[in-house]
């Protein structure tokens, strides 16, 4: 039996396959579609201080090997999350990582203050990178100084591991990763969605209401791998790889490039058991190739 467990600072994962924020709801929706406990962890839909309605429709548009979304952080808000969503998640034997978002640094702080007493939450992923809200989000992870300050502020109020989620819509993502590290983040996760756009040539309207939107799916995987590579090569911080991961081979590309864990996003919409299958496949792969621990693969890229 290969050892698939991974440690990211104080965060222990039984295996390196997580599901990505906003692509798995709050877990319970898929309970009959997959064995949730097979996953290394579940990253929740972004939680904000107040409930958010999200953007007007259309919010989604399909593209060749990808999709656009402009959900706009629609979520139930931190209080309802704690009262209605967390109890189900708490019963699971997988790591629960709360993804936290906000329009101001204070909002992140207030959300984490509310969540922090709940032991079932193993870590926070800080969504510094949502392209679909007017304020905050993206701006935070496009400026290293802001990234560092906000991370530091949150580092000071919680003992739990912090994972800064970074945007790919930036010249040098490694500068932001370095800033997150300097601010006290335990890890970075990337990528959030690329900014993309599509036009309905019949109506001459944008295909999603917000005009530009977040681009995800297999089509963004090459960009995600290049960004992960940039961070791995330049910053000494654990990296969680995200972007277009549909199967074990895709996940292996990220591990080999240097990601110590991966998150499955868009693939869940097509098959919410993608992560579960990947864990099984990874186990077989390791056993079949004489690999005792997942760490033997991580960063094994031959340059």
């Amino acid at each position, binding site marked *: 039996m290969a050892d698939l467990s991974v440690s990211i600072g104080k965060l222990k994962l039984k295996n390196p396959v997580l599901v990505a924020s906003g692509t798995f709801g709050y877990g319970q929706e*898929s309970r009959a579609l997959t064995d949730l406990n097979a996953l290394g962890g579940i990253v929740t839909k972004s939680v904000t201080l107040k409930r958010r*309605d999200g953007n*007007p*429709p259309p919010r989604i548009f399909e593209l060749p090997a990808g*999709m656009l979304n402009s*959900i706009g952080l629609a979520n139930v808000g931190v209080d309802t999350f704690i009262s209605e969503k967390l109890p189900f998640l708490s019963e699971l034997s997988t790591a629960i990582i709360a993804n936290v978002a906000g329009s101001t640094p204070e909002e992140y702080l207030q959300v984490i203050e509310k969540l922090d007493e709940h032991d079932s939450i193993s870590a926070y992923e800080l969504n510094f990178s949502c392209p679909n809200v007017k304020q905050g989000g993206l701006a935070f992870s496009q400026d290293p100084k802001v990234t560092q300050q906000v991370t530091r502020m949150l580092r000071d109020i919680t003992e739990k591991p912090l994972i800064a989620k970074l945007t790919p819509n930036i010249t040098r993502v490694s500068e932001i990763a370095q800033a997150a590290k300097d601010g006290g983040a335990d890890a970075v996760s990337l990528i959030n969605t690329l900014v993309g756009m599509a036009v309905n040539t019949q109506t001459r309207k944008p295909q999603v209401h917000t005009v530009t939107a977040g681009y995800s799916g*297999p089509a963004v995987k090459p960009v995600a791998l290049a960004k992960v590579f940039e961070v791995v090569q330049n910053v000494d911080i654990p990296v969680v790889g995200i972007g277009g991961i549909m199967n074990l081979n895709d996940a292996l590309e990220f591990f080999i490039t240097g990601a110590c864990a991966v998150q499955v996003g868009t693939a869940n919409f097509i098959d*919410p058991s993608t992560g579960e299958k990947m864990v099984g496949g990874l186990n077989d792969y390791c056993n079949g190739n004489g690999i005792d621990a997942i760490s033997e693969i991580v960063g094994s890229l031959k340059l």
Partner: protein
Amino acid sequence: MICSPPKSHDCIVLSNKRLSENSIYLTRLHCPDIAQNSSSGQFVNIKVSNELSPLLRRPFSICKVDKAEGWFEVLWQIVGRGTTLMAGYKVDDVINIIGPLGHGFHIKSGIESAILVGGGLGIAPLPFLCQDILEKSSANIAVYVGVRTKADLAMAELFNDFDINIIQCTEDGSAGIQGYVTKPLIEKLASKSSVPPVLFSCGPEVFLKRMVDISSEFDVEGQISVESVMGCGFGICVGCPVEVQDYAEGERKYKLTCIDGPVFDSREVLLVG
């Protein structure tokens, strides 16, 4: 009515029939779980390809079920890449399907009169609705079918098994009553019968908008099945909002078509069509 949580099924194609020259198909799939645990108005989400493009599943209303034989049918039309692939389905092909999904029609016990109105492919969920109503009541049912042209009336044959009234309209007048289906419907509603009917409708957004108006005009209960682009079909992508005007729950402005719907009370939803 939500039944069990959605499951993933490998369904076997029992038949895939082209119903009309307008490329309308009826596909029968073997899946006892969906056949037995779904209610009318619910839908399934079909994995149309194993390729990365088309990437997402395609949603289709459950058109008819046979609980004993363990199959259900979907009625659909070729409109794009996914449905073009579906036209190639052959008997014994295995297709991955998630379902049953969503909240279907709400059939009050003791319902006495039901009017079912289908615009185009919106006819799809109505045969199952007939089955459901007849199982649960002895209601008097009338089905109004509105299509573009004669060939599309092949869909109306799906109601042949039921002992009900079928009113057929074609926009081009090539068969049945000429014009929009709302015309004879309004006449019928105007000639007030003693029992107020419940109006169930499904079809394109402009048509549904008209149905919402008609329900309120004649002050009858209306249930409409709406469509939306869907990322997942079971509530995890939050990509399928419909605006709702009933702010009973406070600040809520949107409900999700896939889990709160696709069937809504006609007074609740704000349509844009």
